[in-house]
Structure formats: structure tokens, C-alpha cells
């Protein structure tokens, strides 16, 4: 029998690794010294974060999501690096390269209908969509506020036929970058955006994108997040030496009536990726279409927490979220749909489809419908399955070998979402990414 002398029992508050990490990060990243909205925000966010721990699994919204990948990233700003070699953009695409500092609009001629948001409007609208969606105090949003040194703010005045491509490629650099975006679509304006993130090193990309859609405006937003983690065998536990890239992405949209918002996201290859698409139909009567596809392998974690709130009647939502989980990866989906009393005649449908490709992988999927209004149509469904035996057999019975049949089925599963990305996304070979293959040169 072992006795423990009472005197030796100590209650010690262990230092929170997140606190130390943030302190190091803020020390190495000098505060903004101007009097811009960003500087004010930075001060607020740094103060707020100083007393806050990293999100932990004790919090409901992070219950399934291990955030230790964050502190494995060196707590320093991403060093300025030579621009990565990117494939040339196709015709009719305006590419802006985002690097967290410097002005991405420097020397750029914007197409007709698209312009830099004027200072007064920036002042007034900055942070508004986050606030409206109840996300201003979320940890990833505060982290973004604490590190972002620049905001790309655009006003869309009319339908813009050029696709706006926003690209960030952190390569194998080590450190943290914060990207902040604001899109204001005037009534009747429309824009198609393709946001591309690429990373393969020990770096963290924090993105906060706010979008404001006026009456009758249309925004089609594709997000292609291509991470490249070290081989799973090497990185069973994330360490600074072989940390996998992290993506924290918030997209907060506010829609006026008759506006149409489409968000199509494809995410794979990150050590940790957390996506929070948040939509407020502030007087209802708008249309929201969400498509998500995520893949985990090795010890990766991808977590999508979406939330759509109808603050008025006659709103529509069409949401499909898909996940592939291989290796020991973990995929999380939480889809909140909030229909308060004033949101009568809401027509919302949410479907979550997940494929489990390994015995060690894990999928957590949860529709979260809060419906108070009584005259609504809200459908939801969630399936988690392996590849369907009857589908495999059908293909095999036509001479297609089992492994090729499985690949065809996986491709089909992915294509349903990828086909909806803006066409110029083909340049980035999204299918290879989602299939866990090396892209063709």
C-alpha cells in the first residue's frame, strides 16, 4: 500500500499553454500605432484575450475539437517572404494576393463596379456583421483582431462580371497571419469570389470575412482551403518541428431581403481547420445556399460550425455538408438553424452526409435546429456511412475493380460539391486535394 503524505499534496494551477503562446505572439508582433479601426480593435482583442484560455473541449462549441495544433505553431508573425509561385490566373479573373500586411490593392486596377470601400463606410461597417451574428467575442475572431494588420474592404456597386480571386499561400513559413476582409454589396450588385488558402508548414492562417448584402444583391463565394500536412506517421502528435498548418476561418454575412448568398467550401489537408460560416437574414425573405466538403486523414481535425438565423419571415436555406474521414482523422459538423417566432414561412433544408473510410477515423455531426415559428418547413437529415456495398457491387459487376470502384464513388461524392465552386477553381485542382492525391504538376 502506498500512502501519500498529506503535506506533499499541492494544488497547483498549471500554466495555460494558450496564455503563454498568446503572450509570446503579442510580444513578437508589435501593436499598430495608428488610429485606424484596426488599431482600436487590436487593442480591444489583445486585452480580451489576455484573460482568456484557448478554446478547450470543456466548451460546448469546441467539445470535439482538439486545439493543441494551435500552440504547436511558433508564436511569431509570419515572416515576409518572396511571393510564392502561383499558377497564372485565367482570363477574366482578378487575383489579389493576401499576405496579412501591405496593401493588396496597391497598383491594382479594379474592374467597373468594384471599388475600395470609403473610409467613413469602413469605420461604420467594420465588425458589424460579426456583431450581428453574435460572433464578435468568439476566440478565433478575437485572435484575428489581435493579429490582423490590414483590412481588405471593397464595395460592390453593380454586377461585376470579373471573378475576384483572393489567394494566400503561406508555403512552409512558420508563424501566424491574420487576414481581415469586408465586402459590401450595394442593392442589386453581384460578385463572384474564390478564396484560396494554401499552406504546408507550421503556420496558422486566421481569416475573418464580413459580407453585407443589400436588397437583391448576390454573392457567390467559393472557399478552397488546401493544406498539406506532414505525413501522418511523422506527426502523430503535433510538435513545433513537424506541425501541420492551421486554418481558422470565420465568415459572417448579413443579408437584406431578396439577396442571394452562396457559400461553397472545400477543405482538406490541415492539421486543424475550423470554419464558421454565419449568416443572418436580418429581415428574412432572402436566399442562402451553403455547400461544404471536408476531408481529414492522418491525425487531422476539420470542424465546421455553421449558423443561419432568420430574423424575419419567408427566408430560404438550402444546406448540404459532406465529410470524408480517413486515417485517425476527426471531422466535426455542427449546423445551427435558428427560426424565431417572427420567421414564419421559413423554408430550410439541411443535409449532412459523411463517409467513414477508416476504423480509426471519427465523425461527429449534429444538426441543431431551434424552431419557434409554427408555419415553417424545416427539413434536416444526417447520415454517416461507409461506401455503399450495393454501389460498389454495381460498379464491380460492370468490370470495374473494387479499388477503382471505390475511387469512382469517392470522386462522385466530392464532385457533387466541387462542381459548384466557381469554374476558375479548376486551376487549383480541388479534386486531387479532396481525394488526398498529389496534384498534377
Amino acid at each position, binding site marked *: 500500500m502506498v500512502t501519500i503524505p498529506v503535506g506533499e499534496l499541492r494544488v497547483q494551477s498549471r500554466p495555460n499553454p494558450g496564455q503563454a503562446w498568446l503572450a509570446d505572439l503579442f510580444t513578437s508582433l508589435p501593436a499598430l500605432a495608428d488610429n485606424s479601426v484596426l488599431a482600436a480593435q487590436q487593442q480591444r482583442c489583445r486585452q480580451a484575450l489576455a484573460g482568456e484560455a484557448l478554446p478547450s473541449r470543456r466548451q460546448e462549441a469546441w467539445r470535439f475539437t482538439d486545439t493543441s495544433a494551435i500552440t504547436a505553431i511558433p508564436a511569431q508573425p509570419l515572416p515576409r517572404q518572396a511571393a510564392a509561385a502561383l499558377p497564372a490566373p485565367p482570363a477574366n479573373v482578378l487575383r489579389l494576393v493576401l499576405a496579412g500586411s501591405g496593401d493588396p490593392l496597391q497598383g491594382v486596377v479594379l474592374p467597373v463596379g468594384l471599388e475600395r470601400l470609403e473610409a467613413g463606410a469602413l469605420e461604420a461597417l467594420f465588425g458589424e456583421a460579426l456583431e450581428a451574428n453574435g460572433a464578435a467575442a468568439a476566440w478565433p475572431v478575437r485572435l484575428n483582431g489581435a493579429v490582423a494588420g490590414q483590412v481588405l474592404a471593397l464595395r460592390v456597386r453593380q454586377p461585376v462580371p470579373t471573378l475576384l480571386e483572393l489567394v494566400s499561400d503561406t508555403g512552409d513559413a512558420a508563424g501566424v497571419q491574420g487576414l481581415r476582409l469586408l465586402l459590401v454589396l450595394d442593392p442589386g450588385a453581384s460578385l463572384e469570389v474564390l478564396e484560396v488558402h494554401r499552406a504546408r508548414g507550421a503556420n496558422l492562417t486566421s481569416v475573418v470575412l464580413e459580407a453585407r448584402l443589400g436588397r437583391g444583391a448576390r454573392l457567390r463565394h467559393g472557399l478552397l482551403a488546401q493544406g498539406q500536412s506532414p505525413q501522418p506517421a511523422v506527426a502523430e502528435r503535433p510538435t513545433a518541428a513537424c506541425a501541420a498548418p492551421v486554418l481558422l476561418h470565420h465568415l459572417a454575412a448579413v443579408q437584406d431581403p431578396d439577396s442571394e448568398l452562396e457559400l461553397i467550401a472545400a477543405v482538406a489537408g490541415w492539421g486543424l481547420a475550423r470554419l464558421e460560416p454565419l449568416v443572418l437574414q436580418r429581415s428574412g425573405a432572402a436566399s442562402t445556399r451553403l455547400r461544404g466538403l471536408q476531408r481529414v486523414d492522418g491525425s487531422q481535425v476539420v470542424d465546421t460550425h455553421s449558423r443561419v438565423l432568420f430574423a424575419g419571415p419567408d427566408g430560404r436555406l438550402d444546406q448540404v455538408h459532406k465529410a470524408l474521414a480517413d486515417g485517425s482523422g476527426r471531422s466535426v459538423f455542427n449546423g445551427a438553424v435558428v427560426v424565431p417566432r417572427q420567421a414564419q414561412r421559413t423554408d430550410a433544408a439541411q443535409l449532412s452526409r459523411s463517409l467513414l473510410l477508416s476504423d480509426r477515423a471519427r465523425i461527429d455531426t449534429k444538426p441543431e435546429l431551434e424552431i419557434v415559428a409554427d408555419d415553417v418547413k424545416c427539413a434536416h437529415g444526417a447520415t454517416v456511412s461507409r461506401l455503399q456495398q450495393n454501389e460498389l457491387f454495381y*460498379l464491380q459487376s*460492370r*468490370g470495374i475493380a473494387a479499388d477503382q470502384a471505390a475511387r*469512382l464513388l469517392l470522386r462522385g461524392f466530392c464532385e457533387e460539391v466541387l462542381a459548384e465552386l466557381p469554374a476558375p477553381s479548376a486551376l487549383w485542382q480541388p479534386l486531387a486535394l479532396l481525394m488526398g492525391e498529389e496534384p498534377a504538376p
Partner: protein
Amino acid sequence: MIRPDAPVLLEICDLRASVEEQPILKGVNLTLRAGEIHAVMGRNGSGKSTLSKVLAGHPAYRVTGGSVLYRGDDLLALQPEQRARIGLFLGFQYPVEIPGVSNLEFLRVATNARRLEQGLEELDTFAFEDLVRERLQVVQMDPAFLERSVNEGFSGGEKKRNEILQMALLQPLVAILDETDSGLDIDALRIVAGGVNQLASADNATLLITHYQRLLDVITPDYVHVMAAGRILRTGGKELALELEERGYDWVDVEIERLEASELEALAAAQGSRTPAEVG
């Protein structure tokens, strides 16, 4: 077309199979020669569909006895895809919908898998499109269906046409068509059956699995087999199908009961005769 000297394509001998430990096939015997069209009729649950799935190699069915020779070689040792490549085709009763997989690409991959086995050159996308457009005519199918996902949102008739289109592309030597007539209106039935008739030749054999006489009004079988309780109870010409249509299947129950009783007796006698020897 019956030619006694035609080569045997498929020879099923005392085939027994189970699904989830439940015996379904209890000794099926059937021989298909080149040029022949056979119809297997029987009630739901008689084992007709199981026979087709076992021949195609569905993993849910376990063969517990007997043999199947395909052109003299053991068919049951082969994976489902290998059976298809050497010329066995199963037309599904319920063709499977595969969202996101383009029908055109599916058809091309399948066709090329078969062509490789036949020692033919693989077809590139352009050559294949020419071929598929020509074969579409066999079932008067709208080319628009090539652009869609495999069977997704197809009506019952469109799905069955798509099955026959696959048959037209794969050119099997033995085609097993499982309830190809189910869910078809009379026009679609005529088109689908017309396709089957066009594809039947002196070199291949067709096994039609059906419930009703009406398919056999448009495709004339050389042999009709009545299946019940997992075996073939009686074999005749096309007049047997007409007889079934008239008399129904009730007489089958009587015959099966009689058969099973006599088997039990034989079994008991065999055991009775063995016991003294074992004691001694």
C-alpha cells in the same frame, strides 16, 4: 435458337447458396448453350434473383455447394469484376443510383475494362462517344442521359434502358436479366425487349428472370424453367410459360411438398441404413 452442338457457355451444377445463413438456393441445375434464350419464372422468394446475384458474385451471398462453369472454367472463383470482364452480364432489377459519377464516364470505364480483357484497344473519350451514340439507338435512349449521374433521377424505364445500353456496350456472352420487365409500361417494355432481341445472337446466351408472361410475348425463349424453393422444378418450352399464366403457381406448392417429403424419406432411409454399420 437451339443447336445441340452449340458450345456450352454456362453450366450450373447442384448450386447451393445462402444469405445470412439462410439457405436460398438448394441445388440448381441449368445449362446454357450459345444461341439460347432461357427464361426462369417463379414466385417472389423462389430464389430467381438470388441465382442471378450468385452468378454475378454479390458479396452478400455465400455459395455452400455445387459448381458453375463458364466456358468450362470455374466461375465462382472469380471476383465480380473479373466475371464481367470475361463476358458475364447482370442486368439489375433495381439499377443503383450513383450520384456524382457521370454516366458517360462510368460507361467508358466499364467498356474499356471489358475491351482490355478481350485484347482490344481502350477507347479514348472521343472514340467512346462515337460508339456510345451508335449504341444508344439499340434502346432509343436520349443522349442527355449520358451527361447525368449514373441512374440518378432516371425513371424506371430509363434505368432499364441504361442497363440494356450497358449490355450493348459490353457485349456479354452470357446476359442475365433480372426482372428487366418490372416497372415498365408497355412502350418501354417493347423498346427494352427490342434491345435484348437485337443483342441476342448465335454466339451468346440470355437468361431472363421474370415473373410474368408478358416479357415472353416479346422475347421468345427457347426454354422456360419454373423455379420454386431454391431449385428448378420443371423445364419446358415457351408453352410452359403460357401454362403458368393460365394455371398460376399453386400447383408448384403441391409438387414442392411432394418433392421435399420424398427427399426426407430418402434421407431417413439413408441414415437408417448407415446406423447399424456405424454401430458395428
